[in-house]
């Protein structure tokens, strides 16, 4: 790699709270994340970790009861006149966001294709509509491009499908259409929020492969939000592990999967049944994620962490650097911390994984 690609999306110290009937929920508690051009970044976490909220903040899609307490989301792009501009997405008004960023430069694909599509409009029309809106194309040009996109996302007999309504397509097809609409305005960044969770497993791989192909062709940068580590292993270059509104570990995909450093990441990896294990019990992280109505002092993961230290109940750990690309927020990395071995089942599994790689290559 001659030079590192430049950062196009930089989230710094994002802090968001929600006002609910029951009180204030401190949902995002200081998130730092960056995306470089052409890369695929995954945000992994359980429900309630805040991964969707983080990206919704970038798109201006936060609910009305959300308050951004602090932080910035810096987006760098090449403007129509060729100059490079950087804006803080949090400072733009909703109108500016809708007008220039959403759909045009940053597009989002959601989990449920059935609710993302308008049931009363043919899919061809929906793709074209997006193009009228963002690129002010003429009808003929838009139609041609729409057909191109349908082919690009792998929909067979695109001419025929053009006039179909969403309910006439299968789940996988619908998701492809949603992606086509997202791509119609030539965005720089594609955010996929659990794009394959609602789909059958045989379709999942194909959708992901399709997105990866397009990413290469169109020089896209992609952010995946998911709880599925299989998806992450397949698509991601970099992984951010999120827990209770914070990023607890970040690194490139190999570091996270072969040398995880945070006990939560250990838990996530161990909880997946391995096709090769004959273990009697699946290791699982006990308990459930904390209720951020009552923010726990110290490390939010401490209550579920069998390797918790005394200090975990007193102070939240900072990010400790392991390598240029790999960091984790756990007191176990502090020089004074005891040396903790990974659980033996996990270590055995990681060993098997490394061996499998050798066999494959």
């Amino acid at each position, binding site marked *: 790699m001659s030079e590192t690609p430049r950062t196009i999306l930089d989230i710094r110290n994002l802090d968001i709270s929600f006002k609910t009937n029951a009180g204030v929920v401190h949902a995002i508690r200081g998130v730092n994340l960056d995306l470089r051009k052409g890369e695929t970044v995954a945000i992994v976490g359980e429900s309630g970790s805040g991964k969707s909220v983080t990206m919704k903040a970038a798109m201006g899609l936060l609910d009305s009861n959300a308050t951004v307490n602090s932080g910035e989301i810096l987006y760098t792009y090449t403007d129509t006149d060729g100059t490079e501009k950087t804006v803080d997405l949090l400072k733009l008004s909703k109108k500016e966001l809708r007008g220039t960023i959403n759909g045009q430069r940053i597009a989002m694909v959601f989990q449920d294709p059935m609710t993302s599509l308008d049931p009363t409009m043919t899919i061809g029309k929906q793709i074209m509509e997006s193009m009228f809106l963002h690129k002010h194309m003429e009808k003929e040009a838009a139609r041609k491009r729409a057909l191109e996109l349908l082919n690009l996302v792998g929909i067979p007999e695109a001419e025929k499908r053009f006039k179909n309504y969403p309910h006439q397509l299968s789940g996988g097809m619908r998701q492809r259409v949603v992606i086509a609409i997202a791509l119609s305005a030539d965005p720089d960044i594609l955010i996929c929020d659990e794009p394959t969770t609602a789909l059958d*497993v*045989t379709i999942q*791989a194909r959708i992901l492969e399709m997105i990866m192909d397009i990413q290469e062709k169109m020089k896209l940068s992609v952010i995946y939000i998911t709880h599925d580590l299989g998806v992450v*292993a397949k698509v991601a270059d970099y992984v951010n592990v999120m827990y209770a509104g914070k990023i607890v570990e970040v690194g490139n995909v190999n570091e996270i*999967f072969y040398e995880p450093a945070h006990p939560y990441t250990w838990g*996530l*990896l161990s909880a997946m*049944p391995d096709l090769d294990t004959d273990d009697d019990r*699946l290791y699982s992280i006990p308990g459930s994620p904390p209720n951020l109505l009552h923010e726990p002092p110290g490390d939010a993961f401490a209550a579920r962490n069998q390797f918790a230290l005394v200090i975990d109940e007193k102070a939240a750990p900072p990010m400790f650097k392991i390598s240029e690309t790999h960091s984790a927020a756990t007191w176990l990395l502090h020089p004074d911390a005891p040396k903790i071995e990974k659980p033996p089942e996990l270590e055995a599994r990681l060993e098997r994984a490394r061996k499998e790689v050798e066999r*494959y290559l």
Partner: protein
Amino acid sequence: MSTPLLKVDHLVQHFRMSRSYTVRAVNGVSFEVYPGETYGLVGESGSGKTTIGRSIIRLYNPTSGNITFQGADISGKMDRDTGSMLRKDMQMIFQDPMASLNPRKKVSDIIGEGLDIHHRYASRQEREELVAAMLKKVGLSPEHAARYPHQFSGGQRQRVGIARALIMNPRLIIADECISALDVSIQAQVVNLMKDIQQETSCAYLFIAHDLSMVKYISDRIGVLHLGYMVESGTTEEIFSNPVHPYTKSLLSAIPHPNPEVEKRRKSITYDYKSSGIDYSKGQEHVVSGTHTVLATEEELAQWV
């Protein structure tokens, strides 16, 4: 082999939506579940797996076929004793943690519902104790008994659902996609819990799922469903080490490996029923080896094995 706890014989379940349109959800599925084992029923959306579970527990009335449970026929009109036995010894855990618990009922009433219906306690005190014991067994605190479902997380709600089924001490529990809606780490918790319960009570599970890796982990034997037909069945070992049917092969190849270097290079096998030339209705059940069977015509069998 001992006598099967549950025997499903050529179960057909069709739903007549209108005069011209019938949904053929299940088309002649047969399998057996033995006491104390876990039988995994695997398939994607539209395979009929949920329908099979619901037909067995008589939420639907089977269109045709025979279902025998603990020696009694439960597929036709049941007499009072059989009906009562079915409602006690067979229980179900549902998929959606939000919808499977009555939002207006306290957790103790939800769990104790079976006890209430079948008068299984002598005093309110005893009922409370039974419910508290069950809460502890599924890893919840007994002080949760007075709370309402919306005050719990998805994983906790599933545990309540398990407690509700378990308190009846059933011989067979049908787990209908009961972990699909949960986060992976919570799935592991629930599955471990189910395994513990099985060890303690020797109950059998009919584990309906679409996630093959979890199915492999928990099941002793597996049946693969596609479009309402059982295309392949056998022990877990047989299916995973020697898949015969092209659908099974594509399903297995679609399982993601949490191994980036491997996963990035792997290409999954595709299988499209419409263009494959296979007609499930023409296939017969053939034995491949041991208990391993596959649905195929003579020619197809020759091709695949």
